[in-house]
């Protein structure tokens, strides 16, 4: 009888533990054990935040209405989305929508279906263009022999972002050489604050009992921070922002660590975009910072436990942007593309720049392509810290990055050459995408017709 009681107690104990474990996983936001409740492996774009089910799901496993656009709306706006949902609000599209519901992100991008997920999180067969644009095969004789599922292959068309691929743009840049005579648009530059703001070591306002050593002070005094008048206290003296203003005890206190939000007070665009990419997306969802060890792409094992915050690449107190441009990346990333960079002419140009043998801004680093200098709506120049932004898809790099130094056709070919991408563009592209030629031929044909019409008049 006692044995039976013990058995019952053990069974109850096991049940309590199992139920408790499941309940914790289901209820606690961000619980690491949540993954065991997942219906399938998450996509490359979302795996970092997969333990925050509530970011995409309602209670009861429904899908939140704005789940996709909460994170991706701004990106689509900037891309001049060619197929925004509102485009299909014209009621005459009802029949087409019954074939392919283009107003629902999930029609093409389902989650937790790893076995059918293609690049860009696409989960439907790649013939989707054909459903609505069949007439192209007849109205464009040049397209008559193209495979009906080849429209969106690299270099031709994209569903959302065609900024570098539309006809007029292709035609306008058709004659560009592979290598432009000089770099255009935004190059590396350092702002020069007024000399009156410059601080020196003697101006450092850290408390006397604060553990500062000479190296830290030397490093700080040599940076743009000191040059722009940013003192120790501007980053290390913090107040509890949530405390009411009337709280007289909320005196600033000195902190050794500096939060992302503090950096973001001055570097707003950088901090915001950092949170949108794979480096910062966990922090954006109040999860612990990402570590290279949890990445799905190849990383150095000795970097496995680093945490990805501002300091990961911009270590204090030098905040060395040269280090952050190449060495910081390669100290974690260990895939073929990253490691091949050191053997490319892009890297050679960077070495020459560092050695002072080539003009400032003529070198090409990891950051040149993945974290380009861009302008915000107000015309302020900043470094894009969402390093995934121009990879979704990689044709986004064409205008933002490649065309600063290369012609359009060369850029399209290079990005469409998957082997060359692996080799980090070590050689010239070995494939040719016809889109520029087709656009040029079409514009020439139009011009011929126009002239013939004018002659008739």
């Amino acid at each position, binding site marked *: 009888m006692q044995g039976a009681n013990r058995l019952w107690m053990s069974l109850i104990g096991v049940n309590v533990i199992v139920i408790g474990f499941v309940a914790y996983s289901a209820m606690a936001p961000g619980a690491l054990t949540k993954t065991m409740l997942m219906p399938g492996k998450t996509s490359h774009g979302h795996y970092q935040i997969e333990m925050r089910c509530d970011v995409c799901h309602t209670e009861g496993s429904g899908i939140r209405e704005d789940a996709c656009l909460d994170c991706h709306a701004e990106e689509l706006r900037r891309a001049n989305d060619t197929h925004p949902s509102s*485009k299909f609000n014209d009621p005459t599209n009802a029949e087409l929508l019954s074939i392919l519901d283009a107003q629902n992100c999930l029609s093409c991008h389902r989650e937790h279906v790893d076995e059918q997920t293609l690049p860009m999180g696409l989960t439907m067969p790649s013939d989707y263009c054909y459903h609505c644009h069949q007439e192209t095969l007849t109205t464009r004789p040049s397209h008559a022999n193209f495979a009906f599922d080849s429209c969106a292959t690299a270099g031709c068309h994209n569903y959302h972002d065609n900024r570098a691929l539309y006809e*007029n743009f292709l035609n306008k840049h058709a004659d560009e050489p592979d290598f432009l005579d000089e770099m255009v648009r935004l190059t590396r530059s350092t702002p020069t604050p007024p000399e009156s703001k410059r601080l020196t070591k003697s101006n450092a306002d850290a408390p006397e009992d604060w553990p500062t050593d000479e190296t830290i002070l030397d490093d700080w005094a040599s940076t743009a921070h000191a040059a722009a008048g940013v003192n120790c206290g501007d980053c290390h003296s913090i107040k509890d922002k949530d405390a009411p203003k009337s709280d007289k005890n909320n005196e600033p206190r000195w902190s050794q660590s500096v939060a992302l939000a503090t950096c973001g007070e001055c570097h707003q665009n950088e901090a915001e975009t950092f949170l949108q990419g794979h480096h910062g997306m966990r922090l954006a969802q109040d999860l612990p910072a990402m570590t290279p060890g949890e990445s799905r792409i190849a990383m150095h094992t000795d970097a496995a436990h680093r945490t990805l915050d501002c300091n990961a690449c911009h270590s204090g107190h030098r905040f060395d942007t040269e280090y952050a441009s190449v060495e910081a990346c390669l100290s974690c990333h260990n895939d073929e593309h990253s490691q091949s960079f050191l053997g490319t002419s892009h890297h050679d140009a960077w070495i020459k720049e560092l050695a002072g043998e080539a003009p400032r801004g003529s070198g090409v680093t990891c950051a040149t392509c993945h974290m380009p200098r861009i302008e915000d709506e107000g015309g302020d120049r900043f470094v894009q810290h969402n390093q995934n932004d121009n990879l979704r898809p990689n044709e986004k790099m064409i205008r933002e990055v490649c065309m600063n130094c290369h012609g359009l056709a060369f850029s399209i070919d290079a990005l469409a050459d998957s082997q060359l991408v692996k080799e980090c563009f070590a050689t010239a592209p070995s494939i040719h995408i016809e889109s520029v030629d087709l656009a040029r031929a079409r514009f020439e044909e139009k011009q011929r017709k*126009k002239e013939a019409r004018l002659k008739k008049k």
Partner: protein
Amino acid sequence: MKYQTSLSLSLLALLCLLAVSSTGCGGGATASSTPPEPIEPGIPYKKFTDAVHAVMMADRTVYASKVVTRLKKQDAPVTPSEYWEDEDHTIPLPAQMFRMGSELVFENPEAGFTYALKSKWPLNEQNGPKSEFETKALDFLAENPDENFYGEETLGGDKFFVAAYADKAVAEACWSCHNDHGNREDHYPEFAKDDVMGGVIVRVPIK
């Protein structure tokens, strides 16, 4: 056995109590205490579409004559261009301005209607007629430039009141650009002043 029966009865009573409490008994009383809103006289569909079309045309005319033409007359460094999004110092063409307004209304669920600029001779094939009604309407407007075309249409299971208004060539820039445009097909007509170039189609869902 007796114990089991009483347990079942207790559970049943508890369930009944839960069911009653979760139906929200107070709702009906609150609703009935609110006085019914006075019924406003409705605007006939035709009157509504005529009115919104008048506003659309007025806005586009002002943009074309007071902005675009004015800039041209002054030889201003800003010019209208089809590729205004990608070219510095350019502004949208009047037809593009009109289409952008239509897109904003498409995006606005509160608007209660939609409108679009369509043509039998579109420079962008996506702007051709997309339903039997639209084809019929554009044919009618081409034949009867001074009349409007009204009717009802069912699309995707929803019924709409549809009004179509002729869109005529009013400024030389409009027809000369369309006549010389690279996207025009060989069979398109040569437009001249006051020719019908397309139609504005306004739809109101019938509820």
